[in-house]
């Protein structure tokens, strides 16, 4: 049998939960954000919680465009402020499942303060962070997760800064649940989002995602596919590895730990109530 064309169609099973009228999205070929988003979309459908009860809030960035593509109540706010916006929304309507979907720069650079304070308060939010090791949207600059020595458009001689180890930071700040996966793990992302939906308090799910245009090319990871291969070869389950070892380094010999990293019961944030 010769090669066969795949049957063409114009609709996708997820079209009811994504804004199909806005497809194709703006993301580059090989970009991982779409995979992270579909994992979230799938979790919504599998959650058993009506779609009308789900809200997604994003900041600004390529990852921040997710809010614009999800066919649920969705807010595309300002750079770095998705978490406090989501917090206000959630406290007023605690019955809603409020998820923040945004990028490493949005959440951990300009939005870093809200991130650690929301984790500290243990507010009942699910935060999905698409970590592509750079600022994709603005053209591939240094971000707070860019590995030491990596090249970006603002570190042409190699990054002189050490990156955040996000799970460790979130653990220290007070998050109840932290996990890390890559876009090679769509099922696990979906599972952990589902788990986070059910878990009271602050959940943080880091999804490593290729950004071939911004991060990949300057660092000789030409295609999204190449970064996926890298994940395939270097991802290792984190079981038992201490949190301070979770940093990601580009050097070949270092593993990338993935899995559920923190899962603990801390009192979730409750508004003050006057004794009656």
């Amino acid at each position, binding site marked *: 049998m010769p090669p066969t064309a795949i049957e063409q169609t114009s609709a996708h099973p997820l079209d009811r939960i994504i804004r199909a009228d806005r497809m194709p999205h703006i*993301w*580059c070929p090989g970009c991982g954000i779409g995979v992270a988003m579909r994992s979230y979309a799938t979790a919504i459908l599998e959650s058993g919680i009506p779609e009308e009860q789900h809200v997604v809030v994003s900041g600004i960035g*390529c990852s921040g*465009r997710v809010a614009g593509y999800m066919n649920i109540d969705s807010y595309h706010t300002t750079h770095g402020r998705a978490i406090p916006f989501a917090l206000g929304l959630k406290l007023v309507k605690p019955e809603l499942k409020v998820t923040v979907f945004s990028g490493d720069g949005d959440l951990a650079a300009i939005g870093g303060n809200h991130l650690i304070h929301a984790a500290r308060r243990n507010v009942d939010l699910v935060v999905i962070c698409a970590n592509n090791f750079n600022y994709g*949207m603005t053209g591939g600059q240094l971000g707070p997760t860019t590995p030491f020595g990596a090249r970006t458009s603002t570190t042409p001689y190699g990054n002189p800064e050490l990156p955040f180890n996000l799970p460790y930071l979130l653990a220290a700040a007070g998050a109840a649940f932290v996990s890390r996966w890559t876009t090679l793990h769509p099922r696990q992302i979906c599972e952990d989002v589902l788990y986070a939906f059910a878990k009271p308090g602050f959940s943080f799910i880091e999804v490593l995602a290729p950004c071939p*245009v911004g991060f990949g090319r300057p660092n000789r990871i030409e295609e999204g596919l190449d970064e996926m291969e890298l994940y395939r070869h270097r991802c290792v389950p984190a079981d038992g590895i201490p949190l301070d070892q979770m940093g990601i380094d580009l050097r070949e010999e270092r593993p990338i730990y993935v899995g559920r990293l923190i899962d603990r019961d801390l009192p979730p944030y409750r508004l003050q109530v006057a004794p009656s």
Partner: protein
Amino acid sequence: MRTEIRVGGFGGQGVALAGYLIGKAASLYQDLDAVVTQAYGPEARGGASSADIIVADGPIDYPFLTRADVLLLLSQEAYSRYRWEAHADAVVLIDDGLVTPDGGDAPHGIRATSLAEELGRRLFANVVMLGFFSRVTGIVERATLEKALETTVPPRTLEMNLQAFALGYESSPETEPAA
């Protein structure tokens, strides 16, 4: 003399670079003034992309296209979008591997992307197109465009760039049969 040139395609095709090279060749290596402007898609890559060059023999006030005299089109989308905004008698250059012209239109075609792929990197389609543009229009000369390439592209890619340019310049500037 004011000539308005538009290069159109999608992100990743090197549209901006092509525009820049035309402007640089004209303003630094020929006795012309030039302005290059660029239409960004959304902040990210991957959307539609275009670059406009105004070339004139004196100071340029309004730096944008009012109506294109020359078009270099690298995608179908760009063709549909820009072709009929331009002068009806504009010089239209297309990558005819990617663009199917409308009935009644007879642009100059070159299979720029295929040629670049044959050379080894489809990314060089823009430079193939530049060579073709220089040959067909003569607005900017081969020598000055090559000089612009030399002073712009990373040295290790210069050789391939010059080859791509030559491919475009030397291919026969035939007009597409009006379909």
